[in-house]
Each structure stands twice: as C-alpha cells, then as structure tokens.
C-alpha cells in the first residue's frame, strides 16, 4: 500500500444546533488514488470532506495533509462543488482562472493556464460563455478545470455529478478517470451512488449515519486497464456493488 497523503485521526463534529455529525472518524487516503466516501444522506460525508478541505472547523481530532496538521484551506487541496459554485457574472475563462486570480497571478499567465485546462475538459470554444448558457454537465467541467488550474495534489469532489443527467454522468466519469490517470492526482470523492463508487474508486470508505463513523473500508478488485463498458460488466465490479449494498441496506 502506498503512503497516505491525507490522514484523518479521531475527527468529530458537533454542529451549533447540537447535532452530532461525525464521531471518531479515522481514515487514511493513499497518494495517487481515488478514494470515495460513501453513505446514505445525512451520514456526514460532505461534512467530513469539507473538514478535510478546511472549510468547516471540527471539534475533535486532527487532519494531516502531506505530513502537516491543517485547520484551514491550503494550496495543496482544491475543491469541486456539488452545485458547481461558478461566478454567474464571469465567463468560463475567468471562472476557470479564478483560483489563480485570487493568488495574484498576472492575467495573461493565468488565462494561458486556464485555456489549457478548458481544452482538457473538452470545453474549447466556450471560453467566453457565461455559466447560465451551459448545461449542468458543462458547468461541472468548468468546476473541475478550475480545480485543476491551481495544480493541487489533492482534489476534493463533493457529489460532483449529482446535478447532472445520467448519460452525461457516465461520460463524465470515464473522462474523469482518464484525466486523473494523466495528472497523478489524489482524489477524495463523495457520493451516494454505489455504482459510481465501485466504478471509480481504488478505496471506498462506507460511513454509517448519525453520528457518522467509518463502518467499513472496501477496496474493489476491478481491473482498470479494461474499457469502461467491460468494467461495468466485470465480475469484481458487480460483486463490489453487491457487497456494499448488503452493508448499507441496514442503515436505510
């Protein structure tokens, strides 16, 4: 097993209204792999992801990223939002370059980087469109490109495909795997879809609800060198989906 790039140790979270979202969560995320946080709604998976991102404070435990303890956002992590979080008044180009803009990178430079990633996520030609002229799938590609431009080692994705229709979602999943193989990123991915988790992940952490805690870690035995359609018919893939369903059904 490779070294963990992100480690969560004994993390707990109680919201101001008294709801305990997470209790004693311990997880290690291996470098260069795609790990999924999977569980039913309300199990605190998004909360955990945002704690790792440093967007919300935790009450107990520690988060370690690249050997350093963190309690705020940092340049080695980039976030992809469930609702895309695109600036509605800015075009695609400015949205993708926004992370670099905040860092004070001069305009020609940051736009050059942004153009490269816009092309990579397949949005060439849409640079000057405002977000409201894009479909949900295209908007999320903008969100992904924005996360890639800042060249973070770790990409945090919060249910990125949940507001995208099913066909787009499949295509996007395939493209995502391609891109990540290319860029050697560590990805932490939140989803409530068992199929999505089994299809994408090297490691799946199953969370049980109220308070959220890790109930099991699954490492799907899926041969990723095969084509997407073959994977979706793969024995290991189907077994993983089945196993996870048997564990999760007790929480529903």
């Amino acid at each position, binding site marked *: 097993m490779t070294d963990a790039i992100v480690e969560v140790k004994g993390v707990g979270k109680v919201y101001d209204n008294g709801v305990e979202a997470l209790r004693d969560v311990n997880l290690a995320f291996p470098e260069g792999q795609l790990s999924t946080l999977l569980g039913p709604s309300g199990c605190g998976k998004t909360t955990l992801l*945002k704690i790792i*991102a*440093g*967007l919300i404070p935790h009450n107990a435990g520690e988060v370690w990223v690249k050997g350093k303890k963190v309690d705020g*956002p*940092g*340049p080695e*992590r*980039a*976030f992809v*939002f*469930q*609702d895309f*979080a695109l*600036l*509605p*008044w800015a075009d695609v180009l400015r949205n993708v370059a*926004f*992370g670099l*803009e*905040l*860092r004070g990178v001069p305009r020609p430079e940051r736009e050059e980087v942004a153009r490269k990633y816009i092309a990579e996520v397949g949005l060439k030609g849409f640079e000057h469109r*405002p*977000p*409201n002229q894009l479909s949900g799938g295209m908007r999320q590609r903008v969100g992904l490109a924005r996360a890639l431009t*800042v060249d973070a080692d770790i990409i945090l994705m919060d249910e990125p495909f949940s507001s995208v229709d099913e066909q787009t979602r499949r295509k996007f999943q395939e493209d995502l795997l391609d891109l990540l193989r290319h860029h050697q990123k560590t990805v932490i991915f939140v989803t409530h879809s068992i199929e999505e988790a089994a299809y994408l992940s090297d490691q799946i952490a199953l969370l049980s609800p109220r308070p959220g805690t890790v109930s099991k870690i699954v490492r799907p035995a899926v041969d990723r060198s095969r084509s997407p359609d073959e994977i979706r018919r793969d024995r290991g893939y189907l077994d993983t989906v089945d196993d996870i369903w048997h564990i999760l059904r007790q929480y529903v």
Partner: protein
Amino acid sequence: MLLSLLVWAALWEAVGQAKLSSIVPPFSSVVEAAIEIAPTEKFRNAAIITLRSFALGMGLALAIGIPLGVAMARLKGVGRLLGMWVNIFVSAPISALVPILMAVVGIGETTVVVTVFLFAVFVIILDTQVGVTHADRSLVEMARSFGARRHQLYTKVLLLSALPEILAGVRLGAIRGVKGVVIGQLLVAIIGVGELFELYSNHFLMEEFWALVVVVFLFAFAVSEAIAALERRVEYYAASR
C-alpha cells in the same frame, strides 16, 4: 406604452378645452408653459438647487447605506442591534421628521439634503443586507477553498453576488429620494421646485403648475428607468443562481 400615454394626453387636452375644471388647463398650454418657463432664471435656479440637494442626499445615502448594509449582513451583532430600527424606518413616515430637521439643522438646503438622505438610506441598507446575506454560500466556500483573503472575498464575490439586490435598493432609494426632495422643499417652502409649486398654486398659474408637475414626474421616472436599465444588465446572473 407611448401610444397609451398619448391617449391620456389627448383626453387631458379635451377636458382642458372643454373647460370642465378650473384647475385643468389644456395639455397644449401646459406644454407651452413648460417651454416658456424652462429658460427662465427662476426655473433654472430652482432646478439646480433641487438637483444638487437630490444628488448630495443620494450620494450620502449610498456612501453610508451600502457599507452599513454589508456590515449588518456580515457582523451578527451589528445586524441584530440595528435590524429592528432599519425595519421601522424603512416604512415609517419620514416626512414627520422634517420638522425636527427644520428645528435642528435650520430652514435651508441642508434640511432638504438630509430629508433626501433619510428617505433613501433605509431601503438601500435593507436591500444591501438582504443581498449580502443571501449571497450564494457555496460561492463564499469556493473562494475560501482557493485561499481568498478577506478583501478578495468582499470585492470578488460578496459585493458582485449582491449586486442585483443592491441595485434594486438603489432604485427604490432614488425613487424615495425624489419624493424626499419634493416633500422637503414643500415643507421648507422657500427653496427649489417646492417654492415654485407653492408660488404657482398660490397665484393660480395652472399651466405653469402642471408643467412643473410633468417635468418633475418625468424626472422621477427617468431616474428610476435608468437604474432599472442597469439592473437588467446584471439580471442574467440572478437567474442562474
């Protein structure tokens, strides 16, 4: 819309020509009167004083209202301390405060400026606060996750995100500001178009009176439409929220 207004103008003309009412002169003589008084020194001075009071009062209302609205949205204590009072004064009869201003500030232009300010400022505060409070939370999180500093959060996300509401507040504030300048000048009674209104009605100069009414109404409408046009330009991003 223009056609419909023309129908009304024709109706006005007919009522005036038929001499149905002593206070309604034909529309054509009102237009004539407007052309006649426009170049006079008296009208020009009144217009300048009125526009100046309006501009100063509005400027003050923007300079204080927008930052205060932002502060109320972002700082819990400020919002809770002032929220009730802003809500009271946004619909309170501000006209009742003019006698206080006349007693404290004196009878003059300053009183009118402060009246405009008081008429306009509360709705600007309120709408700015609403806009910033409802600024997309995930945009704020996004900016933070990319390491935005405090001032970047305000200049690059919060204010732009609240722009539609702020502009709506500015438009409502400007409409109220025009009402404030007229009411203030009427109550103070010795300056600007307020003085002219009193003068014309006291001397039964109906053509001139109505000419002034038309001019002032059109000015109010033009101000509100100009800001509404700005609003329409930023509308597209309210839709995608």
